[in-house]
């Protein structure tokens, strides 16, 4: 009877694989994980993704290696009568350990996620009209208005001017107020690490602090009808000086339009969405 100690052997294989693979995954994949580091929030999400990936790797290896191991070693011999396996119906120790370990893992994940969410002021996600945590210090409010099928942006502190492309100053906390004039849209600026649904009659607030100058994509990520796929454009993060010049020019350039607009409000009562109406 020279059956190897499968439990020990498998534990060894899994242990070595995890010890090798997990740091490799973190070191190699971590830096290239989306959404990049051009804002505080995006950088936070990269950290979050890296931590989750680091935790997922051993679990993935456990099950995949287990499948491979059991498929290789625990099979019916070829030919001959069908052999029966051992009539084991459970193992209280293994089950208890499993429950304890998974519970600890899950609770720590939830705790970590909550801590990250709160410490990062919503981590770039739409946090509703009254966010649980609000960053201290001065903030630049910018309103994002979704309508079929474009986003426009209003700067309430600059006379409520409304522009078709988002421009944000670097190094300043931005307070995005996302709302919609018709159906549900979702404002997704991937490189900024921001996503917030635009609901009619709702002022959905998200905080983001750009740290790098450059362009970013804006897409709608909630199905909003015919041209949902075309609802994308680009925005820019510029230096504070450039922003000051740009917003002055914009105020002048869009002055006639601003006059025609309704006064700035956190939400706008939408037109009836009836067909043909």
């Amino acid at each position, binding site marked *: 009877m020279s059956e190897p100690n499968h439990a020990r052997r498998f534990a060894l294989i899994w242990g070595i694989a995890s010890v090798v693979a997990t740091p490799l995954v973190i070191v190699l994949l971590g830096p290239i994980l989306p959404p990049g580091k051009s804002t505080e929030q995006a950088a936070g999400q990269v950290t979050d*993704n890296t931590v989750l990936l680091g935790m997922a790797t051993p679990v993935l290896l456990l099950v995949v290696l287990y499948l491979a191991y059991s498929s290789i070693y625990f099979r019916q011999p070829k030919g001959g009568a069908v052999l029966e396996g*051992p009539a084991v119906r459970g193992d209280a120790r293994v089950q208890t350990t499993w429950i304890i370990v998974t519970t600890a893992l899950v609770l720590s994940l939830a705790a970590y996620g*909550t801590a990250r969410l709160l410490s990062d002021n919503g*981590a770039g996600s739409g*946090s509703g009209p009254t966010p649980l945590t609000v960053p201290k210090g001065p903030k630049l409010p910018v309103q994002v208005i979704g309508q079929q099928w474009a986003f426009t942006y209003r700067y309430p502190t600059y006379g409520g001017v409304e522009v078709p492309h988002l421009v944000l100053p670097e190094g300043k906390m931005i307070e995005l107020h996302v709302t919609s004039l018709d*159906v549900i849209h979702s404002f*997704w600026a991937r490189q900024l690490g921001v996503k917030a649904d635009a609901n009619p009659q709702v002022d959905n607030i998200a905080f983001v602090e750009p740290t790098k100058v450059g362009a970013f994509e804006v897409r709608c*990520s909630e199905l909003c009808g015919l041209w949902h*796929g075309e609802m994308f454009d680009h925005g820019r993060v510029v230096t504070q000086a450039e922003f000051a010049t740009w917003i002055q020019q914009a105020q002048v350039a869009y002055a006639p339009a601003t006059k025609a607009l309704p006064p700035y409000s956190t939400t706008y009562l939408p037109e009836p969405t009836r067909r043909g109406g």
Partner: protein
Amino acid sequence: MTTTAAVPTPQPTGRPLWRRLIGFNLLTAVALGVGGYYLGWFIGHQISAKSLAYQEKTSENDVALLVAYLFGVVGFLIGLGFANYPVSRLLGRPASLREKEEEGIGRYFGLCTDHKVVGMQYLIGIGLFFFIGGVNAMLIRTELLHSTPTFVGPGQYISLVGMHGTMMMGMMTSGILGPFANYFVPIMLGARRMAFPRIEALTFWLLMAAGFILTSTIFFGGFPTGWTGYEPLNDQAVMGMDSYIIFFALVGISMCLLGLNMMATIITMRAPGLTWSRLPIFVWSVLATAVLMVLAAPVLVATLTMAALDRTIDTSFFIPGGGGSSYLFENLFWFFGHPEVYILALPGFGIVLELLPVFTRKPLWGYRLAVSGMLGVTLLSFFVWQHHLFVSGINADLRPFYMLSTEIISIPTGFIFLCAMGTLWKARSSFSVPMLFCLAWVFNFLIGGLSGVFVSDTPSDTSTHGSFFTMAHFHYTIMGGLIFTFFAAIYYWVPKMTGLRFNERLAKLHFWLMFIAFNSTFLPLFAIGMMGQPRRVSQYAPNLHALNTWVSISAFVLGLSMLIFIANTVYSMIFVRLPVAMNPWRSKSIEWQIPTPVPVYNFEQVPVFDSDPYDYGTPIHVGGTRPEPAGA
């Protein structure tokens, strides 16, 4: 009492064909369905022709279409004979269990109260609509070969996406419960029938009517909302939206009745000795699913009723301009919608754990843990729905709670993994096709579960929400979880149902092609999503073109694997017709101990159970009988 009365008496052979076509059958049903549709259309126009101004401008009339659909369904059901019994009861005739039925092949084309016939009907019917949903997926991937709308217009594209999603989410809820639970749960319980055979038949025919109605949306302009039907886009959409509403409402009713029937059967009709702790694990998973169906589906029906009223008589449940809220729809929809995804997943758990002992020749490892895992998932799935709304701004201060509840649900799901892995430990596995599909489930659902950790974590979800990442995640859990086990069940049980066996070589080819193509299709989607492609768009960034092309080609191979399956079915079941051995898998479960084909009365004697069906394996400490492991 004898059940001889239940056996259909042979039809007189001399009966002419035209005489047999008159009566309550599918032909009458279609005729009355069409008649009812036009009657409803006419009545609907009389009700609302002048009341709503926009209808004249746009030649749209939701009232007419909704009434037409409802009348059509009622006519269809009357034609099948579903009204006969209620009317006879109204007149005070005594209760009965079965309808008088056609004999022979005709049984499969009408109202039949034999649970085995209903199981077969479900298998074919659901297979048909699964095929339509699959063709939609192929068209979607064809369009995504280009980064701009080329193959279909943007309107057709979102309609395709909506039809694919709705068809799959609606039809496949009954994908395992319909065919396999209807067929095998009564047998596994040692019963002769389901508790309510007419309701059982009704669930099937409702589902068929529903599937037809959803397909008919192409005649009314399709619908732009995807399977979630979010308001107020729902309210804004053209008449095709009504098809979605009626479809999902009918599916909801069918689901609720199916679950009710299953639960009543499992609770009341277990044979002597079949205690709760001896119940096959598949029956447990059906029970857990049924709980979700009975409680979650009514909320869907209520929600869609509100949506239909918003669209017709101008109520304002979801219309912000009238005092309603789009959040209300999201809340109600996902209160149904999250249990719904477990309605899809749970039967898969049951199939895997039911089949693994057969192919590993070991008892199910951790029976109680598996049961508590299923019940835990059932309970928790009612408390997680707002994780679909992490970035919506709805109740943002509840997000830590929903993050916690969502992540806690992975504990009972983990039990299922542990039980599967425990059963594999020191097993004597033989890798028949059903076993391969079960092992593939372990891998797929693992990827699905681990990617679920990313979407359940709010900061990570900010990036992944509404992107292809999420789409890949739920395809791993639903296609990788449900559809793979669906095929495991087909390869395992259809030989019992038909008495014929599948071609093994084609089946293996199907499995490997499907498994590889599935992963090759959906693994890259995680990356595509992370790189910025939202769901349901036919326009994407040019730098994602190469990956999308790869995914599309893989998807076509996945489609090809389904064609191989169809070819195998036609080849094995119609042309070659090799009879199956009495118990080809050497299963100890009761359905394999009774004759093939299963007689109409299932059992001559009501069986008495003295153990669970996992009595495999040799006791460990019987000296010397333990053979050497194969790889040692």
